[in-house]
């Protein structure tokens, strides 16, 4: 049995919108709304969904970079939801995050050696010499020449900067790494290099990934399990093959059918969704997807569908599956 590394239960993150004379809370952006999932040691769970579905907020709240509105985060059996920043600090070295933007996420005034070394400084790990050594080793691991440690971020290409991001995240030997769209900003021929690097490092260092992405081809290639988000909710979770071969939620089906396939001879049945994603400030009542769902029924408006397990490890929140 795999060991459970992290689990979140009914996680909620609402951002208040202040307004009026006394700056009272007039409404909330329901970025993440009662989300539950777990990640086992050494596996990759992908979080997919369109922009505004709450993927990034989920990732950040799970790491407690944002304080959850309610819900529970359990890391290695320990409830970390209400730990203070001071209590969190020793745990932080086990969980790291890597960002999408290779340009905005590195300090332009710092040499890359210092950027990569910073986590070691923050956590006071090793002597100065050991830290330097660790940086050099890490740079080599991610495919950067250690001689470049004195150079500044602008001297590197987008792909190399993402390697710097990986090195910075991994230099303190974390267990869990949140990858927030790590390849979206890269050129096609560079994307595969970074994907290979991430997979190789995962195997070598037994890393656990929460992979946040919207490119479903990459998700299929990278993940063990996949969770699909829509407007702050997880609508379906399943093993990789199960999800791609037997999607059950109408949104998952539409999402998968919308992905263009790089083969002109494949003609796929396409479900074109009408309209746009509603605002998370004022999501539809009942099922959040009902306004665009081709199968919406009266009950979808009245009741929120419960998450049910339709097969081992395959959970879906849809009234179509509970009815009959």
């Amino acid at each position, binding site marked *: 049995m795999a060991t459970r590394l992290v689990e979140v239960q009914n996680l909620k993150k609402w951002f208040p919108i202040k307004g009026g004379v006394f700056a009272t809370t007039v409404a909330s952006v329901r970025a993440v709304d009662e989300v539950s999932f777990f990640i086992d040691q050494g596996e990759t769970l992908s979080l997919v969904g369109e922009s505004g579905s709450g993927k990034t907020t989920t990732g950040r709240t799970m790491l407690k970079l944002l304080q959850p509105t309610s819900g529970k985060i359990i890391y290695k059996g320990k409830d970390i939801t209400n730990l203070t920043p001071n209590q969190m600090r020793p745990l932080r070295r086990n969980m790291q995050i890597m960002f999408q933007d290779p340009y905005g996420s590195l300090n332009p005034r710092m040499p890359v050696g210092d950027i990569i070394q910073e986590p070691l400084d923050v956590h006071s790990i090793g002597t100065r010499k050991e830290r330097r050594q660790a940086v050099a080793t890490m740079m080599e691991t991610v495919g950067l020449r250690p001689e470049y440690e004195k150079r500044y971020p602008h001297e590197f290409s987008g792909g190399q900067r993402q390697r710097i991001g990986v090195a910075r995240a991994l230099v303190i030997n974390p267990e869990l790494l949140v990858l927030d769209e790590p390849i979206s900003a890269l050129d096609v*021929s560079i994307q595969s290099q970074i994907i290979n690097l991430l997979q190789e490092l995962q195997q070598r260092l037994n890393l656990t990934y929460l992979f946040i992405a919207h490119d479903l081809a990459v998700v299929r290639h990278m993940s063990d399990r996949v969770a699909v988000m829509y407007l702050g909710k997880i609508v379906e979770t399943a093993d*990789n093959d199960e999800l791609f071969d037997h999607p059950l939620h109408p949104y998952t089906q539409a*999402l998968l059918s*919308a992905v*263009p*396939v790089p*083969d*002109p001879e494949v003609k796929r049945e*396409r479900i074109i969704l009408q309209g746009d994603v509603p605002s998370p400030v004022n999501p539809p009542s009942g099922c959040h997807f009902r306004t665009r769902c081709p199968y919406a029924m009266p009950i979808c408006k009245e009741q929120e569908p419960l998450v049910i397990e339709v097969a081992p490890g395959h959970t879906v929140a849809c009234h179509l599956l509970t009815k009959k």
Partner: protein
Amino acid sequence: MDNREVLVDIKNLRTFFYTEDGVVPAVDGIDLTIHRGEVVGLVGESGCGKSVTALSILRLIPNPPGKIIGGEIFFHGQDLLKKNEEEMRMIRGDKISMIFQEPMTSLNPVYTIGDQISEAITLHQKIDGAESKKRTIEMIHLVGIPEPERRFSQYPHEMSGGMRQRVMIAMALSSNPELLISDEATTALDVTIQAQILDLMRGLQKKLGMAILIITHNLAVVAEMAETISIAYAGKIVESASAKETFKSPRHPYTYGLLQSIPKFTEKKTNEPLPAIEGMVPSPYHMPKGCRFNPRCPFATEKCREEEPEILELTPGHLVRCFYPIES
């Protein structure tokens, strides 16, 4: 081969940018043929010259620093590079129009979308206000925006990204162009919205019969849309063939490598690494000698490092710029 009339014929186009740091040969040998009603894909990574090609067709290269220094762009047999500014203005937005990646920055935030679409109409057609409003509402309806009358008086910020892109398309198609250039028009959109827009473009192409030049880095998008595909690398076309041929038997090592390296949505997970192309796109200031792909090419020889290959027609309609094309 294609017995449709040739609409656009680009021959050895060269557009350079003269910057303080040196000369950037952004486009350095692009050949492209577009027939009437044909959907052509121009694919490549950033810096390959695909957008500069589009801007060159419309003669919208900012000068300085940019300059079209060579080649010909025939449109209906007439060289656009020989036209004066006045004549170009009659063609731009009328016979040839373009949609861009960023629908927010391409729309004017202080005018309603109705005003912006009717501006495009009255600029090229001699019609009065009432007629142009009617035509604008028709266009808004045509691109699938619900409640055209109400939308007419809305501002761009009141619309979502997908809706704005529809407005751009309405504007571009309002003059019944013969060629629509789409420069990464769906790149910024979510997949389900991208599917909507591609579906719309396909539908309108069938209905109105215009030719489309789709510029993108996304191989899957061109696989779905294009009949013919040209692959650009570092300012040059390296391969050009029908969509079927391109994906079934790519002959240029770059095309082959690119197709191999992208993860396939339909394939099960393996722990095998992807066959990635090593290295990175060359800096435009320091283009490699010989074939521009040689530093990254697994098959490169001394000859590739010294001489530049010409683009040759290997089989009818399949052009490749390589000394050692991959066997089909």
